[in-house]
């Protein structure tokens, strides 16, 4: 077990990040696009901060979905035709 890789990363960190970000990674294109400073930083990050690489994620899921209880008895419900899909409920 390597202390530098406690989570046993088995892929290149850029590929792993792309997977976490939900992006298709064209590595050839990316290597041309990113400057060496950025690529070096990715390489170091894999070793220095593996936990942060493992937690790469950008979508937010409801934290307590079971704890949502919709209420109905509002004093006002406001809609505006100019703003589709939006409404304001006021107590």
């Amino acid at each position: 077990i390597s202390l530098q890789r406690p989570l046993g990363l088995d892929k290149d960190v850029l590929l792993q990040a792309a997977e976490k970000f939900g992006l298709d990674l064209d590595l050839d294109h990316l290597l041309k696009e990113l400057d060496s400073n950025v690529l070096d930083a990715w390489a170091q990050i894999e070793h220095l901060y593996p936990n942060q690489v493992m937690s790469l994620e950008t979508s937010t899921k409801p934290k307590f979905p079971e704890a949502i209880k919709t209420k109905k008895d509002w004093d006002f419900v406001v809609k505006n035709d100019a703003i589709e899909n939006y409404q304001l409920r006021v107590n």
Partner: protein
Amino acid sequence: KIKDPKILGIDPNVTQYTGYLDVEDEDKHFFFWTFESRNDPAKDPVILWLNGGPGCSSLTGLFFELGPSSIGPDLKPIGNPYSWNSNATVIFLDQPVNVGFSYSGSSGVSNTVAAGKDVYNFLELFFDQFPEYVNKGQDFHIAGESYAGHYIPVFASEILSHKDRNFNLTSVLIGNGLTDPLTQYNYYEPMACGEGGEPSVLPSEECSAMEDSLERCLGLIESCYDSQSVWSCVPATIYCNNAQLAPYQRTGRNVYDIRKDCEGGNLCYPTLQDIDDYLNQDYVKEAVGAEVDHYESCNFDINRNFLFAGDWMKPYHTAVTDLLNQDLPILVYAGDKDFICNWLGNKAWTDVLPWKYDEEFASQKVRNWTASITDEVAGEVKSYKHFTYLRVFNGGHMVPFDVPENALSMVNEWIHGGFSL
């Protein structure tokens, strides 16, 4: 029937509204709580208050900083005579979704620009329902702190892009904000190492290590500014935060107040737990119509997601340039005991920000600011035309918590005094 929030005894003599903005097709629901002005709500301006994080509830601002009550250890409200609704109606909005009492049944946003569209639509519908707050030409301001230094410039730009809006945006106030990381990250080492008005809190070798890593950090932020790609902005955030913030955090000191140690809880202030406990009581949730059964002051998943979306290091200060060039008054204030969004960095970015009067602003002399309520010299101010920077003496990250009288002086002078201090 949802109970009237007045039964909670939080400023029971003023009219108050709670509720949700629903974005139906995305299943997003934003919670808000509004307190009318204690003075003259028919004429006084309206302020939208936003806490930062990203991922922290604006009810922290309500109960910990500038709202009409704090919460005591017995979970009872304690009136705040220096509440910002003394002379303004104040709206506290929990955003983005999945923060505080706001929620989404599906997923949420992880960047500032997406959050801005929801805030604009909230304001349109709010003022549709309550035209009495705008139809006599009352002013409307957005104020916030910390990561709201990202939010506010973008939200204000989004608002100004809608020419047919039903409300006026009069000014914005940014307190201890993160707005221009490329400039501000230069000042963590000076602030921690004795150049910010307080003694150094780090050993010299830690200060040297911060200096040594700065060039690389700034190079990464520059790459992020140039490309604004997640591939550049994420490593900039990880590298710079570990190199420039972590040495201070490891000392156990309060990142929001260099004079103090971090005591209990994620945010270093034990009283924040009282607020969580108060808002998690059933009778409180019933009175405000909360549809989320479990309240947390900060959602660290949101924090992580903004960070890993590359939002942290993006150059949102360019929106400040646009706002100033459209003549929108802007106040940037900073409590001078904060580390994490310190006054040195905030002063520096306002000095180098390009806008139509940037040279004139930069050449202005700093002068003393005397707070009207206490009649004491409470800070230092630099101003030209509609752009003002204020250093607030003895304030931490959350200025209204540390110096409530002077914070109220500041906001009253700004919104009622023609945007000058």
